[in-house]
């Protein structure tokens, strides 16, 4: 068994590092400097992760589609992202003549900034949260919603019908699924009794018989997590919900008219959004940085967090490689007529769970209710052909 101090240090290594570095500065500057340091760390870390992910994704898709994927640049094509980065930096930045220059310029920035803001409240390890806001979750969603505006700006400013359509699609889709996203996370809030993500993690970071109290291991938690996963996939415009940039219909969606560095920013923004929202999911349902088994607690918390993060990223990639794209009206119907009711029901189930108190009954009741609701509603939707032929009713 490894000595406790070693575990401590390995767990808190980044925190200690930060304090050591800040130590050089005069006391009055230290808080600000700490913040700056953390921000720098985040801003530095996640683009690297992004680069890594791109190559992983391309290789993974390659495997799924029975090709090799990038393999030229560097060993196994690992340096591919680097090459891409250089390319996008050196490319000419084309702005359409009729475009609204200011907005066109602002859009990517707003997007990236808003996404980065989201990371501020996500705890990436024990004591590893930039600002422990009491209303963290609210803050996160506030930031998340701001991205929609950026997307709209991009689509509208670049005076292109493909862009505009893509943007409108994206915004509509994001709004629709944002409701589901919020409602599915509200369950967790109800249980943890707090909006602060650190508290939520703390609430899950307990073990009985060596098993953690992750919310995913409860009926409502599982249902909530599934809803959350669906919603996130739609929020991040990932396949099968990637209509906004459906190549076959609208060239590349709202960033059709972007090139060079701005395009790279959009690309970055999307992946960062993916990361942060996966991190949030992990925090809400998968116990954040807590270990899956009590005997694995010696492994540093941040490792757990990032492994969960990457796991969900992998799932994203997997989905993208597997599922076909939906149609707009199918998407909307799915959001409003299936996901939303299920989340609402899930709220009730959670309340029931809370008031049934300890005991096996609550497991039985909640599970039964959820399963029955799932089956019945699924059948109903299918029969009513809400996922059937296209309807132009809401399309102006």
């Amino acid at each position, binding site marked *: 068994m490894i000595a406790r101090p070693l575990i401590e240090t390995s767990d808190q290594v980044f925190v200690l590092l930060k304090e050591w570095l800040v130590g050089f500065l005069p006391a009055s500057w230290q808080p600000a400097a700490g913040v700056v340091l953390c921000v720098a760390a985040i801003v530095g870390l996640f683009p690297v992760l992004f680069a890594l992910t791109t190559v992983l994704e391309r290789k993974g898709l390659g495997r799924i589609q029975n090709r090799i994927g990038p393999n030229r640049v560097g060993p196994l094509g690992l340096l591919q992202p680097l090459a891409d980065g250089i390319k996008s930096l050196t490319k000419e930045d084309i702005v359409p003549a009729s475009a*609204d220059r200011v*907005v066109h310029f602002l859009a990517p920035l707003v997007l990236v900034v808003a996404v980065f803001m989201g990371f501020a409240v996500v705890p990436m390890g024990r004591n590893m949260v930039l600002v422990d*806001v*009491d*209303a963290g979750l*609210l*803050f996160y*969603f*506030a*930031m*998340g*919603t*701001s991205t*929609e*505006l950026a997307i*709209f*700006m991009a689509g*509208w400013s670049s005076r292109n019908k493909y862009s*505009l359509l893509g943007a*409108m699609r994206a*915004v509509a889709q994001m*709004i629709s699924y*944002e409701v589901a996203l919020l409602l599915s996370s509200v369950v967790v809030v109800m249980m943890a*009794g*707090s*909006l*602060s993500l650190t508290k939520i993690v703390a609430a899950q970071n307990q073990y009985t018989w060596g098993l953690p109290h992750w919310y995913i291991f409860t009926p409502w938690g599982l249902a909530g997590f599934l809803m959350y996963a669906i919603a996130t996939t739609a929020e991040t415009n990932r396949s099968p919900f990637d209509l906004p940039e459906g190549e076959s219909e609208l060239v590349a969606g709202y960033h059709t008219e972007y090139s060079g560095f701005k395009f790279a920013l959009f690309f970055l923004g999307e992946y960062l959004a993916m990361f942060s929202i996966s991190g949030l999911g992990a925090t809400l349902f998968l116990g954040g940085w807590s270990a899956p088994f009590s005997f694995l607690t010696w492994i540093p918390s941040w490792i757990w967090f990032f492994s969960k993060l990457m796991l969900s990223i992998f799932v994203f990639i997997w989905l993208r490689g597997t599922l076909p794209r939906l149609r707009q009206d199918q998407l909307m119907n799915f959001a409003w007529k299936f996901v939303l009711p299920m989340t609402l029901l899930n709220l009730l189930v959670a309340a029931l769970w809370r008031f049934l108190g300890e005991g096996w009954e609550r497991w039985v009741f909640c599970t039964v209710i959820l399963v029955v609701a799932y089956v019945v509603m699924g059948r109903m939707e299918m029969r009513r052909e809400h996922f059937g032929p296209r309807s*132009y*009713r*809401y399309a*102006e």
Partner: protein
Amino acid sequence: MSLIFYLLAALTVAGALAAMLLKNTVHCALALTVAFAGLALLFLNLDAQFAGFAQILVYIGAVAILVVFAILLTRGSETPQGGVFSRSWLAGLTAAAAVFAVFAWAVAASAPRLPRAAAPATAATPASTVSPAPAVTVEQIGRALTGRYVLPLEIVAVLLTVALIGAVIVAMHEKVEAK
């Protein structure tokens, strides 16, 4: 008065002015979001975290998007040929000015009697010292909402539902029209 306040106030007012003055409707909407953001920051500056975040969530996340949608749906995105101001803009402006005058006068007149801070300002403590922020946790707000203010909460909930349905009904095309 702290510098931050002046900056935020300037930002907000600028956003508001832009929202009301710009020609292009979409620009107005975007400027409006700036104003909203400024307001949210003002709230934060007032230690009203929850309200600030709610402000961002609701206004930037929902209302602004809604406005933008409405603009696009009403083909208002391109700048109109005729002036953007109505024929009676001068009268309107004067009316607004009158209102502002009255309000400003009111504030100024009542300034001495306003509570300067939690602690009454004396010669020793200048008025600009920010009083200790009341520690408001989300939990307190929640308790207040479900406790003292539960009835308004319910009413607001009903109102929102009704508004949602009503908006959908109003904005929805009749089938016959659609086909």
